[in-house]
């Protein structure tokens, strides 16, 4: 048999074939388990698109508010920092004696304020609440660290 005949025989095998049973029920059942994987495979833009409109709205508002507060805070800090040495004391209710921890205290305090403002915009946001709780926990840890710091004694 020559090459042409060989190829012809093999190409003749290239035909559609129907499965012996209906595979759709098993596929459809598996689709329920793939929702999470599918959402993670989707781009961020698409993921936002498929969210319910209400959820999309508050997320946008919260992120917008957080960005605005952050921008204002950074701008205000940049303008005031060189001349106003009392900035830290004005915004933070607590300042550790250890200078290594003071910066972290300022950051955490600013983050807490931003999160509280964002929560005012989106009071039902569980994600923002979680972030706030985490920030407060970090502040508590920082206080413990400050208590153990040699600068405290």
């Amino acid at each position: 048999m020559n090459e042409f005949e060989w190829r012809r025989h093999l190409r003749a095998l290239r035909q559609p074939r129907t499965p012996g049973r209906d595979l759709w029920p098993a596929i459809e059942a598996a689709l329920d388990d793939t929702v999470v994987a599918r959402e993670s495979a989707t781009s961020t833009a698409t993921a936002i698109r498929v969210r319910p409109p209400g959820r999309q709205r508050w997320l946008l508002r919260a992120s917008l508010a957080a960005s605005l507060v952050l921008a204002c805070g950074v701008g205000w800090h940049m303008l005031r920092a060189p001349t106003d040495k009392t900035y830290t004391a004005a915004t933070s209710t607590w300042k550790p004696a250890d200078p290594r921890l003071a910066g972290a205290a300022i950051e955490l305090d600013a983050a807490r304020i931003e999160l509280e403002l964002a929560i005012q915009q989106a009071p039902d946001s569980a994600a923002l609440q979680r972030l706030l709780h985490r920030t407060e926990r970090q502040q508590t840890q920082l206080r413990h660290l400050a208590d153990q710091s040699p600068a405290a004694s």
Partner: protein
Amino acid sequence: MSPVPTAAHDSDDVRAAAAGDRQAFQRLYVLHVSRVYGTLHRLAGYDHARAEDLTQDAFIRAWQKLPGFRHESAFGTWLYRLAVNVALMDIRARSADPVRVIDEEHLPEFGETPFCAAEREELEQAIGQLPPRARAVLVLHDIEGWRHEDIGDELGMAVGTSKAQLHRARGLLRKALGERS
């Protein structure tokens, strides 16, 4: 390589399915399952149960990946490549299993049956007895019409290796069918 024939009007269903419409996805399934299953059946060595599992996996993966489908090619072409990839991943995973690999000495002899008189089932049975990677190369090149470059890319092998595997597969097939190559 040749794409899966696709209906001209399935783009609406593709968009709907990408947005989560299962009925649209089911229509796509009905339209494409025969071609997908046929290809996977060949790559699985005409093992019905395995081909069915692979077909299910292929459609589930298609559902997962549909939101990322860019419509740069026909949906049928995209689905076909995805399905082949599922089968090749399965072959790669199974190639580590020595039980699944059949050497030349273990291929069944079919006597002096001339190739031209071989029945279709006999030919399929012989292809099904080939070692998985050699079978994949033979199916993709000689049946599906792929180029060695594409086969090498998908199977993670050099073009020369793909050609060598094809030569080996053809030799084994001719031997199995009782023809001196």
